[in-house]
């Protein structure tokens, strides 16, 4: 289970590209080689990163206007005629078209990738209306829908490559704010596998998206107190990596999840289900506690809603205190 040397995390600590930018650039590159890829946009390409694709592949960029329901179901028709459609909009507007994703895409098993930018309170100043805290839970409940939420620009690039190579519907979160870099290289991305970034026996922190960098920082805080924390980049929320969770539960006996999402039903829910099924142990869930977000800078909001490294470390201490003796 130890992290492979290649994948050793380097918490560079600088803010680089946002995940949405990384997504857009990687997709444009992939499309150079893969003529099947088409991109659908709902008048928001500058926000989702899809503008990078547009610049390079104008003829495969489909401007749908501000009409997410039609966009989502049209993607199914494009997939049926041999294209690999990538549907792009904000996470909250993906939710507006979830019934189309369910019926026309997932039920019909169409090979469509839904890529959602602007998830969680990381959205910042736009405020609560735009901060999707429900999408992981909602899309996870759709039968056969794979759900991804990568952690940094390299992880993102690897994830979109894997998503395009995968045959089936996928919902994937990107992110709005500049992302802390975690990986120096990421050539071992595998859908369905969590990636152990740091190995520690006292507690395991399972995170996705922007929370992975904070989880690593939390592990540093804990290390100062002599607590050894494992940290996992759980970039695949569904199907969840049961084997890894079982192993971590056995070895650490205490789990913390961390996500920029409601604590109900998302990564925390997926991990809780897996633990209960395979190897129960105490867990704590870091996320937004069933409230709506509000305007503010992402960092301020992380403080306000308790999504910071110290908040994760505090949850780790709580769950360690609950371990069965």
């Amino acid at each position, binding site marked *: 289970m130890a992290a492979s040397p290649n994948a050793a995390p380097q918490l560079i600590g600088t803010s680089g590209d946002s995940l949405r930018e990384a997504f857009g650039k990687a997709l444009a590159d992939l499309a150079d080689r893969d003529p099947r890829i088409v991109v659908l946009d709902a008048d928001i390409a500058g926000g989702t990163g899809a503008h990078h694709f547009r610049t390079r592949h104008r003829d495969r960029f489909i401007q749908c206007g501000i*009409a997410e329901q039609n966009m*989502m179901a*049209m993607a199914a028709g494009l997939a049926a005629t041999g294209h690999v459609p990538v549907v792009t909009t904000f996470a909250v507007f993906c939710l507006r078209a979830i019934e189309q994703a369910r019926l026309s895409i997932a039920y019909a098993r169409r090979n469509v990738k839904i890529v959602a930018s602007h998830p969680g309170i990381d959205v910042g100043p736009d405020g609560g209306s735009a901060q999707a805290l429900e999408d992981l839970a909602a899309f996870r409940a759709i039968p056969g829908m794979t759900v991804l939420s990568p952690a940094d620009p390299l992880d993102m690039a690897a994830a979109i490559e894997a998503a395009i190579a995968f045959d089936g519907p996928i919902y994937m979160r990107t992110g709005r704010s500049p992302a802390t870099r975690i990986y120096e290289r990421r050539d071992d991305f595998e859908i369905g596998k969590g990636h152990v970034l740091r190995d520690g026996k006292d507690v395991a922190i399972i995170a996705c998206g922007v929370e992975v960098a904070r989880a690593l920082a939390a592990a540093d805080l804990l290390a100062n107190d002599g607590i050894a924390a494992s940290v996992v980049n759980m970039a695949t929320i569904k199907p969840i990596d049961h084997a890894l969770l079982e192993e971590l539960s056995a070895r650490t006996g205490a789990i913390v999840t961390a996500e920029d999402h409601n604590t109900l039903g998302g990564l925390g829910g997926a991990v809780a289900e897996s633990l209960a099924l395979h190897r129960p142990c105490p867990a704590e869930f870091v996320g937004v506690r069933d409230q709506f977000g509000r305007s503010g800078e992402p960092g301020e909001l992380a403080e306000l809603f308790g999504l910071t490294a110290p908040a994760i470390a505090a949850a780790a201490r709580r769950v360690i205190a609950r371990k069965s003796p």
Partner: protein
Amino acid sequence: MTLLAAETLPETLAPHAVSFPYLASLAVTTRRLAIAGIFNAGSGHPGGSLSSADLLAALYGAELYIPGGDATNPVRDRFVLSKGHAAPALYGIWAAMGWLSPEEAVTLRHRDSRCQGHPHVLDLPLSEASTGSLGQGFSVAIGMALGTRMKGLSSRAYALLGDGELQEGEVWEGAMFAAHHDLSNLLAVIDYNKLQSDDLNANICGLEPLASKWRAFGWHAIEIDGHDLPEIIGAFAAASRVTDRPTVVIAHTVKGKGVPYMENEAPWHGSVKLTRDQASEALLALGVAADRLEDWIHGRIA
């Protein structure tokens, strides 16, 4: 709007030599099998299945290019039943075309049947899309029209919509998109039977002036009698000559058409259970001989 002379049309779009008696026979078989299926299922939507039978007969019998009913042929036309609750009629027309066994067509809604309550493309690929939630099939068909055009194929995409379905905003999103993109390889057909589940459109949420709505959304609109086969065929031919925009055929129909006790009678418009007597009366009205009732109910139509 530019009109292309017929002789300049690609071969697959050229007018066929149409046999109206043949189309009429397809329609009647469709109606009978729809009734048989709904009876066997113990539930289903007879009103909207019967109203669309002539449209389906004209589409499959004379308009759609789907050689041998092969749903893997990339240059085939795509037909999406956006009003998915008319599935009994869809299975009926396929059986009439010889693309599905009539015995299977009447296993509608049974646990082990591919004839799901609403068309499901994984069970029956000719469905092209999985429908049942109104509005979506239309969008899927638009995606197909665009998708084949981007690939340089001559395929056309067709969608059959209910009138009540037009209350879904998704339809107007799609209408605006298709017009903006000049999707002249897209044809929408409205089964304008004036009724939806509960009542008349006019009582629920009026649609008139319907053709004006479509025209204001940039479509070429043609109004016809949806039970008059030559009119239907004529509308399709006219549509195929419109090359700068999508066309909608607003087909005025009668809900429950062909079964007098159902025609325009509200209770037959939603999902209902047919008794054996009701099914028999319907089949008799549709010209089944008294001694063949049991055969038709089991799809033994030879």
